[in-house]
């Protein structure tokens, strides 16, 4: 009996002995043998090929702001990266890419190829942020030693980080969200639009929205702020300026309710803002301030929505709220037929929590 048990274990043991041959751990490269790009920029050349820039912070540079920018041009994105890798003394490892900058030209032609590639490589994290760059891409990476910190190589990340330099006017979109926006029936994606700064690292221009990976319209800073508040992406601290004064918005909550009356989808939105007064012009009272805030919010939101509706792009992801209310075949028609008919009612509640140390 005992002997039988032993023999049955033997083949299994021999089999397991071969296991180390399968693991491929000899291909593993130590971290100091990889080049770790922090950001990537993609443009389309006049010939219609992809131009790729990769910004790699120098390891062991004298200052932490040293970096190199490498460039390659190829009809295929992956081949371009391969070319860069071949020319570098170390393999390019896209694992730590935190930012992908896309030129406006790419957006007009369609970002699907870029997003599909980035998802498909498995090297680039799905949490990498996307941004649209206007202006000359050649110059975009080259003179960016304007970061507050020394490490310009990696400061793009901070620009979009809620822990660091992010403000609620900056739209944030991850790679996976862009991919989702490309395919979803009931929502589209909004990307931030930036350009190379003159005195700062970047200059914020606003946002741009896309339908099925193609640019359909743009948003200004006020609109991106409203977009972020509606999305629930808000951290306190933003200053809003009106005719009657300026306030700092401390908290912003939003309630969304949808219904269908007849064939028409209806959206009831209620913004709840908590603000603190920073400046008053003339004899502006609390009431005038509140009125100004309400007007500004209502107008911005409704204008943005109307613009997006005419562009057939559901930037606020309102279609998501109707998911349970429409059949699948109706949802397929959401962006083209139902969404343009959407009527939005908006209500803004404003609470002034704090008037500062001044009494009036």
């Amino acid at each position, binding site marked *: 009996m005992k002997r039988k048990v032993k023999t049955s274990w033997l083949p299994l043991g021999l089999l397991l002995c071969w296991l180390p041959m399968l693991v491929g751990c000899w291909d*593993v490269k130590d971290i100091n043998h990889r080049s770790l790009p922090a950001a990537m920029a993609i443009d389309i050349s006049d010939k219609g090929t992809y131009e790729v820039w990769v910004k790699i912070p120098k*390891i062991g540079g004298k200052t932490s702001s040293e970096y190199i920018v490498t460039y390659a041009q190829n009809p295929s994105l992956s081949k371009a990266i391969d070319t860069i890798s071949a020319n570098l003394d170390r393999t390019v490892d896209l694992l*730590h890419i935190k930012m992908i900058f896309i030129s406006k030209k790419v957006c007009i032609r369609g970002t699907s190829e870029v997003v599909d590639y980035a998802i498909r490589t498995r090297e680039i994290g799905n949490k990498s942020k996307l941004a649209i760059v206007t202006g000359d891409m050649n110059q975009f990476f080259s003179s960016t030693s304007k970061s507050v910190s020394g490490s310009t190589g*990696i400061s793009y990340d901070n620009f979009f980080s809620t822990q660091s330099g992010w403000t609620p006017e900056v739209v944030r979109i991850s790679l996976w969200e862009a991919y989702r926006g490309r395919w979803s029936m009931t929502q589209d994606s909004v990307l931030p639009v930036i350009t190379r700064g003159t005195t700062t690292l970047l200059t914020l221009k606003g946002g741009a929205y896309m339908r099925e990976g193609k640019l359909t319209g743009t948003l200004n800073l006020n609109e991106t702020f409203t977009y972020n508040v509606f999305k629930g992406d808000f951290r306190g601290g933003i200053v809003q300026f009106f005719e009657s004064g300026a306030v700092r918005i401390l908290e912003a909550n939003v309630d969304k309710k949808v219904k269908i009356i007849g064939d028409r989808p209806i959206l009831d939105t209620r913004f709840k803002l908590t603000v603190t007064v920073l400046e008053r012009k003339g004899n502006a009272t609390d009431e005038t301030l509140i009125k100004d805030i309400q007007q500004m919010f209502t107008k911005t939101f409704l204008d943005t929505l109307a613009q997006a509706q005419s562009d057939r792009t559901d930037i606020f992801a309102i279609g998501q709220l109707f998911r349970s209310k429409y059949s699948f075949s109706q949802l397929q028609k959401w962006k083209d037929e139902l969404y343009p008919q959407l009527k939005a009612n908006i209500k803004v509640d404003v609470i002034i929590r704090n008037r500062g140390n001044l009494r009036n």
Partner: protein
Amino acid sequence: MSDTISLASLEKLGDFQKQSIRLLEHDVCFLFLHTLVDAHQTKQQLFTWSAEAVTRAWDVEMLLVRIEGEAISSDQLTAALVNGMAILQFPDRAQYIQFVPIRKKFDRSITESQTQSVVQGAQNSFTEDLNTNIALLRKQSVTPELIYRPVTLGTHSKRSAAMLYLEGTANPELVDQVWQAIQKGAKLKHHTSQSMLKTLQQKWWNPFPTVYSTELPHEATHLLQEGRVLVFLDQYPMAMAAPGLLQDAFGLAEDRNYPSIITYFFRIFRVIAFIIAITAPSLYVALIAVNPEVLRIQLALSIAQSREGVPYPALVEVLLMMLVMELVMEASVRLPKSIGPTVTMVGGIVLGQAVVQAQLVSNLLIIVISAMTIANFSIIGYQNAVAVRLVKYALLIITTIYGLIGMIVGVAWCIAFISGMTTFGIPYLSIMKVKEGSHE
């Protein structure tokens, strides 16, 4: 005939002595080993007794009762002498009389513990002498429920041992099983305590102590109160508690000398230390070589910078440092106390500075290794610490091959291994507590 043979074999012992003394009008042979027996004092004692016997008009029989003499045959002579007994041989009797002489003193006095330091608690520790150890325990727990079962182990060379437990607290089944195991193992040679570990069901391939050893009577008493069985070996200054449990690595009776919040504070940190000690080197290799995408880019860059110029792959680097660390630890145990600090200092310089400056290993690894070593020795019990030292190598290898996933699998395997252990039917992960209100 047999007398002459046994006497001849006694002569071979070298320290055997045969003296003629006069007791109660008889010329008596006094046999003893002079290395064990204080002959001068023993004779004085004999003469005092003999004088006493004369005044009370006792005969030889009465005297023998007085000295608690026991008749033995000539075959048993050698065994009795080696055991430290003294022998009297009366000319008119065939048998020898053995009695307990005044022995030379060569037991260490009770000192502070050398291996387990105590901050706030009873300082004394067990010594080599079995009786002293049991006396120490008796002083710690003054109760008639403390049961002591002596046993003699070994076939040729004998070694006395004892099993102790608290009646009513220890599970009678456990007591029976341990006792049976000891009786069964009594026929083994017990030169080292490894044989006793084997007897108490510690598997040779299992580094985790399923028999937990302690040097402190206070701890031992606590173990008794938890319902465990203690085994003592003569000439071994440790109490062996069966079963050993994982809780021994984290909880100490000494913790109970503080308010509860401090007790838990200590224990939480020991658990953290356990985890760090096992995973730190593996995590280093996984993050450096296999899965650097887990790191934030800032961290990745600074790590890459600190590893710049290091010629070895991460595994070799880690193994190199761990080897040096193990050697330093071994050396500091082995060296005389007067040279010990030198090794520590040299080791510190080598590990801390020179290796990094020579670009043999990265700065980060020094931090990892130090954290690991410190964490390693925050775990209670030397054997627990060594077990962790051993397990982390296994984890390191699997992590080098499979990365973080390998590490998770390795940790899971480790947990499964620990969960699967049982000693005398008690799972290693079970918790034994002092029952509320008992032995108060």
